[in-house]
Each structure stands twice: as structure tokens, then as C-alpha cells.
């Protein structure tokens, strides 16, 4: 390009928060709270049940949760085409948004929403998945986990879990419940709430915090606890203190997600790659994965690598051996 040409104006990516949870868990309550409590912010809200939002917000858009399968050779790559269209239209508006909030229906599988932000180049260039927030009804979640697939998937996908209606459940039961949620998803932040009472800053624009969260995982916590319940969705956390070889890791994770991506719902990690001064941060949804350089390692910091897989039929020994073979 010649020097006379201005570079295209690059807008920062708009953070996107996805709200999932069963009907009646409190999603709409949470949404209404977020919209009333954050004054002066401009949010676009994409909902499925238009009219339930109590706030008069000109930027509430009705979506039909239309999922389609990409013809990209990836068998589980389903995407929300309606989101691609709606977000493209929102961007035509004058001015930008502080955040986009997407509410999904009770039984929705969060994967297509998340995958939309991995797969579509146009959406990726303007918006970034910030976090998936799952609202669970503390009183009913056990029954839901026992009788449905979707409840466990919504827990598995969450970056943040609101254990709502916690006032209706005795403390002992709450602790047991949290342990069960942790077994499914060890990286999510769990907040106990009543009527979704929580500060918006705990929900919105959390990306940086989430990544620190991965680092904070205690790798041995899984222990026997994980198998106490017979939940179909479980997690495996791995840690390695020796530096990782980037090529070996790429080959291993690529093949792993290709072969097992149907049953691996989410993967996340922070890696100490040999030869890199920075943390390498990656996250995946089913077969799709993206990675990027994170913060540099501090001088006196102990470097290590941590990986978490959340999914069905995970073979912990195989994953451990595979990761160990990536050591530089």
C-alpha cells in the first residue's frame, strides 16, 4: 500500500456475553438487571422470546435461534446464521456498542452460538465471545442434570455459573451442588445469587479474568470426586511443568479435536511454549480452536502449562499421555 492511503479504521471487537439456562432459572431477570443497572452503556440485546424484556430498549432484536451445519467437512460444526445476519446489521448502526448480549432458549445447546464466533470471519472481525453465563435454578438443577442432556452441556460451556435461587436451598445442599457443578466444569466461576442479584461487572467484559481463571485451576482437585456422580459430562485437567513444543502440541491437539471433537465440548489452556516469552492461550469448542499470545511470563514466575478438557467419555490417561508427549 502506498503511504497516502489510510489504514482501514479498526474498531475494537465488541465483547459478546451469552446467557444460557433452563426456562425459569432466571435468565430474563438477569438480563433486565444488567440493562437497568448499567447506565450510560450501549448494549445490543438479542433475545428469543421478544416481549419478556421489561426494559424499553430500542436495541432489543428478536432472533429465531436458527442453526445450520457448515459444509466445511467438520461434522459437528453447527452455526447460528441468524446471529451472523443480526450482528452484521447491528454494525451498520451509527456508533458502536459496549457489549452484545445474547439470550438463548432454555433447551438450547450453547455450541452453535459459540462456534459462530469461531467460524464466521465477518463476525470475528467485529465481535468476540466474552463469556458464556449459565443461570441455574439451585432448587431444580439436580433434577435437570439427571433427566437431560442439555443441562449438563450448559454447565459444561459456562465461563460463569449463577447458582440462582440459592436462598431456597439449605447451605449443605448448595455445597454439594457446587461440587457437582465443579466436577462437570472446573474452570467456571460460580456465584450464588438470589433473584440474579449480581453486579454487572461480574458478568460483562470478563475475558481477561477468565484466562487468569484457567491458571488458577488446581490440577489435582479432580481426584476421585469427579466420578462420584454419574454425570455424562466430566472434565480432565492436566498440568506440565516442562516447556511444551509448539509443533508437537499443535499436531496432537489438532488430531485430538478432529477425532474426539464430538465428545469434547470445550477445551482451554495456558501453555508455556519453548522459546516464547509469552503465555500461549487457547480455547476450543468441539472441533474448533483458536489460540493467541497472552501476557509475558514474569521473570521470577514459575512457568507451567495447564489444560482442561470438558466432555463426555474422556479418557484421562490417554489425554495425559498425549500431553506429556508434547514436552519439548
Amino acid at each position, binding site marked *: 500500500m502506498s503511504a497516502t492511503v489510510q489504514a482501514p479504521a479498526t474498531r475494537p471487537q465488541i465483547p459478546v456475553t451469552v446467557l444460557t439456562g433452563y426456562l425459569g432459572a432466571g435468565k430474563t431477570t438477569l438480563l433486565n438487571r444488567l440493562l437497568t443497572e448499567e447506565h450510560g452503556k450501549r448494549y445490543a440485546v438479542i433475545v428469543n422470546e*421478544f416481549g419478556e424484556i421489561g426494559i424499553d430498549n430500542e*436495541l432489543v432484536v428478536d432472533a*429465531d435461534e436458527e442453526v*445450520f451445519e457448515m*459444509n466445511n467437512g467438520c461434522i459437528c460444526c453447527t*452455526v447460528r446464521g441468524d446471529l451472523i445476519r443480526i450482528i452484521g446489521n447491528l454494525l451498520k*448502526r*451509527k456508533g458502536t456498542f459496549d457489549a452484545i448480549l445474547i439470550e438463548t432458549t432454555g433447551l438450547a445447546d450453547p455450541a452453535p452460538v459459540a462456534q459462530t464466533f469461531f467460524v464466521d470471519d465477518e463476525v470475528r472481525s467485529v465481535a468476540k465471545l466474552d463469556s458464556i453465563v449459565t443461570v441455574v435454578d439451585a432448587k431444580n438443577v439436580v433434577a435437570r442434570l439427571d433427566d437431560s442432556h442439555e443441562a449438563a452441556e450448559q454447565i459444561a460451556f459456562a465461563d460463569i455459573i449463577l447458582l440462582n435461587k440459592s436462598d431456597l436451598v439449605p447451605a449443605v445442599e448448595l455445597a454439594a451442588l457446587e461440587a457437582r457443578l465443579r466436577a462437570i466444569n472446573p474452570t467456571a466461576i460460580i456465584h450464588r445469587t438470589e433473584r440474579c442479584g449480581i453486579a454487572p461487572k461480574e458478568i460483562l467484559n470478563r475475558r481477561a479474568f477468565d484466562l487468569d481463571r484457567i491458571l488458577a485451576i488446581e490440577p489435582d482437585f479432580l481426584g476421585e470426586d469427579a466420578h462420584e456422580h454419574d454425570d455424562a459430562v466430566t472434565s480432565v485437567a492436566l498440568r506440565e511443568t516442562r516447556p511444551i513444543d509448539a509443533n508437537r502440541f499443535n499436531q496432537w491437539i489438532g488430531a485430538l479435536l478432529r477425532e474426539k471433537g464430538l465428545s469434547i465440548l470445550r477445551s482451554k489452556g495456558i501453555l508455556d511454549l519453548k522459546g516464547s516469552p509469552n503465555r500461549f492461550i487457547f480455547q476450543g469448542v468441539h472441533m474448533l480452536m483458536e489460540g493467541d499470545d497472552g501476557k509475558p511470563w514474569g521473570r521470577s514466575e514459575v512457568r507451567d502449562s495447564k489444560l482442561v478438557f470438558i466432555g463426555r467419555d474422556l479418557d484421562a490417561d490417554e489425554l495425559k499421555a498425549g500431553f506429556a508427549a508434547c514436552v519439548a
Partner: protein
Amino acid sequence: MSLAEPRVRVPPGIEAKFDAGITGAVFSDSGLLAAALGDGAVQFIGPNGNVEMVQAHDGAALCLALDLDGRSFLTGGDDGRLVRTAADGSVAELMRASGRQIDVLAVSRPAKARAVAVGREVRLLDADGELQAHASDHPSTVSGLAFNPKGKRLAVAHYGGVTLWWTAMLGRNADRLRWRGSHISVSWSPDGAHVMTAMQECELHGWRVADSSDLAMRGYPVKVRSMDWLSKPPTLVTSGADRVVAWPFSGSGPQGKPPIEFGQGIGRLVAQVAAHPSRRLIATGFDDGRVAICELTADRKSRAVLVRPGDGCRVSALAWSQNGALLAAGTDGGALSIFDLA
């Protein structure tokens, strides 16, 4: 890729700058330009450069078409409204669907019909703005609408392909053209023989209407967001690459033949294309603001002249006046140029 700045030859004309991005542009029969904007305004620019503004929508105006009378304009907005505006400042709301983005619209002057999509539903409005018919039998939100040249048929794009309706019997007998995936727009060839769609997967799909046989064109680096047709012989011109990619539909059709490519080395990615109403000229807008006029010659060669330099904003609208003497170009940064090429 490094680009040498080709020499820009800016024709005489009008320059305007607005506060919001241009989302569409179209000329009236008499050469009045209407531009739809991201702040919900419709800006009218007359031949002398006089500008009149009409506030048509509360949010963004998402789509724009010349109305049946040839002098007023229809816009759909993300306020859920379909609005008719005219240069005299009159505004009439033809439809309202709260919470919906009205982003797909088609007008057929031969059929005296306007079609608009509301989610999965297509509504047909007559010349008086009355609801004539509607059809909801589509598998997903409608992403594209196109009348055939005579206006007798309406093509509706959605997941899984295209539904063809007879305009006079909308909602009754549908023909389905099926192809897996998300179809994001639809266009009818000027001879009415083919229906083409752009797809989420950066490719085109199409059907010969007579026998529903499939066509597919692949190899685009990005989604094809703009397509238009040269007629006689029908040639489909498309955005979606660093050059214009054109598919000749003469003879046995485009299958098995390489496309004609032109306009390379001018800008980064072609964002908009608009075919001249009578000559084999393609206005080509790039995602860096450059606009070139490319001439397609019979021997598959082409020449190009750059009429607008790059300014870093994407060309988001291109329109020729009906006599082909004026070309309008708008960007998502709110710049609007009208070039006088007569």
C-alpha cells in the same frame, strides 16, 4: 501484496459526507439519488448537489429500493419498519414489526408488487401498500428476495436453498430448489433462466429454473456480498475476491469454464459491484474505499479506470443512474460521491 497506487482520474461530480455509514444507494427515474444511512436517514441528492434529508427510521436503514412509481423510495430498518419516502419530505409507514430487522426487500415494477421479509415470512404489498398475500413456509429467516425480470415469480433465499413462488399465488404453490447450507442472498439472471445464491461458505450456488439442475462456483476467499448481472449475454459479476469474478452464462452455461477475472491490482478486496444499465461496464468498489470502472471487452480482456482513491473505508453502496450517466458510490464511513460520466 503491495499495490502501486494507480493513477486516479476523478470525474466531475458531487461529494458529500454524512455522520453515518451509507447502507444503500439508488437513483430515481429522473436521476435523483437516494442514500440510506446507518442513522436511519434517507438523504436525497439532486443533480445540482442540493441535499434533502428525511428521517425514515429510528435505528439504521438496512435496505433500500426504488418504489413502483419510480420517484419514491422504500427502506427497511432495524426499528422493524418499512417506510416509503419521497424527496418532498413525505414519509409513510407501510409496515411495522417490532423487534425485527427489516433487511430484505424487493420491488417489481412489471408486477406492481413489493416484497418484504419479516423473519420467515414474506409479505407482498400492492401499489396502495395493502397486504396482498403472505407466505411463511420457509425453513429459516429469509435472507434474500428477488423477482424474476417479468415479476411473475419471486425467489426467496433461506437455509437449505431457495423457495420459488408465483407472485400471483404467493403462499400457495411453492417450488423448492434445495441445496444444503445457509444461502445469504439471491439473484435472478436477466433472462430469467437462472437463480443464483451466495452462500455462507464463500461460494455461489445456483439452479437452472427449467429443470432445477444445480450450478456451483467455488474458490472465493470471502463471502460474496454483492452480485449483479450484465445482460446479452447474461454475465454474473461478483465481489468476494481481490478482483471482480464474472461468470458468463452464454451457451451451455458457466459450468466447466473458467470465470473472467478483472480489476486485479487495484484495491484489496472487492466489496461492491454494479453493472452499467446498457454497456459492459462494471463499477467496482473495494473495501479500502477505491472505486474503479472496469470495461469488459468481448475477447475476455478488460480495462479499468480508478475514479475514487482509497480512504480506508469500505465501499458499501454503488448505483448507476438509469441512463448510465451517473455513478454513485457510498462508504461505511459516510462518504458519498456522485460521478458524472456523461
